[in-house]
């Protein structure tokens, strides 16, 4: 199943071979810089690959590592989160995210509801593209079973169609939840204060540590209205927060 998904995905998002070779060279250079402890150089090289309009889980993962080693915790977590969107089941990435998250000072943890817990299991297991592809395949199977039932009246087709239909609904809701979660997800990249109003003179509501995950609710000029996982909301300067 995973192989099929991978083949389909690759077919759909092919990048010219020559361009790929050039990017692979940049990637190798960046890896060398990282090995030599030149993290700033590694960051510049990895960022160049992304600036070329391409991305991969490994590039974001390595970029996150480089930022972490360069003492930029917030930027590291931003790139780990981007990597998670592309390779959510990577165990190295999960370990690094856990380690880097533990370094966030006074991090406010999200409180998950029962429904969130049910969905977060498989929502975090797949990428958006994988979920779309699975939905497409489920839809196709549903169609095939339906049509086969028209021409060959096999007994289990109703049960198979029910199972496929429920799976389709479950994945569709999961995809909705995932897209909603990813839409506004952001991370604080520099310690900042959240204020009651979008201006420097407004009263401070709470402080935000570097690496704290927040959700962007609205924007006004150079200010963003953010929500902490404990649902407290405040206005912060947009330069202090980066969208995932």
């Amino acid at each position, binding site marked *: 199943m995973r192989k099929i998904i991978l083949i389909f995905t690759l077919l759909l998002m092919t990048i010219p071979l020559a361009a790929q070779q050039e990017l692979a060279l940049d990637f190798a250079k960046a890896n060398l810089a990282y090995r030599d402890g030149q993290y700033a150089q590694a960051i510049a090289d990895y960022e160049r690959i992304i600036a070329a309009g391409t991305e*991969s889980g490994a590039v974001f*993962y390595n970029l996150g*590592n480089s930022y972490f080693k360069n003492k930029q915790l917030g930027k590291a977590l931003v790139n780990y989160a981007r990597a998670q969107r592309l*390779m959510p089941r990577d165990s190295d990435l999960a370990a690094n995210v856990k380690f880097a998250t533990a370094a966030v000072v006074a991090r406010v943890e999200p409180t998950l509801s029962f429904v969130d817990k049910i969905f977060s299991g498989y929502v975090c297991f797949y990428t958006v*593209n994988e979920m*779309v592809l699975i939905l497409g395949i489920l*839809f196709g199977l549903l169609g095939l079973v*339906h049509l086969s039932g028209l021409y060959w009246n096999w007994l289990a087709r109703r049960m198979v169609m029910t199972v496929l239909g429920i799976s389709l609904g479950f994945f569709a809701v999961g995809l909705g939840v995932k897209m909603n979660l990813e839409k506004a997800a952001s991370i604080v990249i520099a*310690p900042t204060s959240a204020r009651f109003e979008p201006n420097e003179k407004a009263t401070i509501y709470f402080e935000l540590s570097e690496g704290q995950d927040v959700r962007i609710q609205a924007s006004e000029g150079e200010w963003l209205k953010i929500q902490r996982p404990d649902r407290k909301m405040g206005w912060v300067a947009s330069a202090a927060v980066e969208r995932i």
Partner: protein
Amino acid sequence: MCKVVQRILNHSVVIFFVLIAFAVMAGSVGAQDITAVATVSATKVELGTAFQLTVTVNGADAVPPVQLPKIDGLESRYLGPSTRVSIINGKMSRSTGLMFTVIPLKTGQFQIPAVTIPINGQNYTTEAITITVVDSGGLNSGPANGTNQNSASALRDKIFIVLSTAKREAYVNEPMALSIKLFMSDLDVKNVQYPTFEHEGFVVDSFEEPLRGQQVLGGVNYQVMEFHAFIYPTRTGDLTLGPAKLAANILIKNSRGDRQADGFGDFFADDIFDNFMGRYETKTIMVESANIGLKISDLPDEGKPADFSGGVGKYKFEMTVSPTAVKVGDPLTVRMRIAGDGNMKSVTFPLLKGSDDFKVYDPKISQHDGEKILEQVVIPKNDRVTALPAVGFSYFDPTDQMYRTVTQGPFALTVSPLTKGEEAKVVGIPVGDSVETGNIMPEELGRDIRFIKETMGPLQKRHFVLYRDVKFILGFVFFVLIWLGLWLHFQYMKRLTTDIRLARRLHAPRQARNDLAVAGRFLHEKDVRKFYDSIFKTLQEYLGNKFHLPAGAISVEALKGYLKVKNGQDQTLATLHEIFNECDLVRFASGQVLEDKMKSTFQQAQEIIDFFERNY
């Protein structure tokens, strides 16, 4: 008689004890400190309006009357003393107020000098009070703006807040006591909200329950609500705290009910002090303090211990280990507790490191008010272990401006070896791979991020999402169309098998086309008889199929009855009638027919079929 005596005796005992209690309390009054305070009912008064001066002596049994010195411009008169005795928590306190009425005789600023009261051979002196006397009506008359300003100023004297900290210089993370005092005088204040204040660069604890009390300020006795909280600076440099703001409702008299006020200006624009006969009205006001500047320094590097915990303040550090007698591989629980007045969030526990002697598990840390507790499992790996090493907790004491280290331990342990056949109880450690006892692997886990990826993996376009990809969408639409098409085809086929009328109708032109082709062949072979047979059969079967009638029952008359004949159709039916007659003539009477006539008949048969296809 005996009962009466008994009751009298009982009452006497009660009275006796009450008297003893009062005597003890009276004794305690004498023992308390004596203070003297002078207060006035107002510090700003109009010419000719009397105000009250009270010299209050607390803690004295007997207070002699005193005379105010002569003050030019003020005339005073002693009204007499008033005594108040209160018992709170069994402690009796007594205060005596010497009251004077003072009448201003001219405008200007006057100072009521300090009053000295001799009690038990000692002199107690109050503080001097400054009084401002203005012209009659000067407090609430004149132009509107002037009135507002005067009145606002008067209200600011009656209710205001003061923001203060215990000190103006501190270190990063040092706990600082913050106080916001709300002063109220001669006002009915309700629904006092918790204050808010600017605190960029500080972490702020939540406010405790406010304390209530009294305080004399500039000769005026204020009711005070004091809000306490601890703040912790997070940045170095010159930081500003405040202003603090506090909202409250005040109860005022008002004759008009439609007034609204958002602040001092609007509040007094209504000229509410003009009419004291009106009803009470609640107004919400916001009072604001001045801000204060604080200088925050970084912690000194000199003498900074390598294991500095990050704690700034005064802390207690306790540590226990249990049990102290175990077998190799048995877990010990180490409990550490740090308590103090500093910012507990910034405090880290001393690290217990694994070694050849001990395996250390990740600790479980919990935090409550003013304390942080760590519980950690430690496992002795061999029976040579005699003690858990000493652990030091280092913090910075801002009072003495130096780093301090509190050490706990070493803790003596008795570790006995495992007997033969006995297994280690440690979870997650492979049994049988140990170095010392045959049971435990020595293990030291470092902590860092994992290494980078060597391969780039599948590259894709930035922000590529499948559901927006044209190829994917087209594929999906194509599949849906195929699905729909097959389903419609199935429905069509199903209808053909169940609806014979439709099936015959749809079958009619195809069969007619085939039959005409056969007739055409006979025409070409000039086989007159077979040609007319074929033409007759073609038309009869076509019309039978078309109108779902038995082929043998097809005649022009039958069709006329079946169809509602129109003008054009009448001509067609006449032609049909002619063809049928011609066919009968050839088939049954062996009539001679020319080839041109056969061609004409063939043409007419085609036209008849076309006509019915077009119109029915």
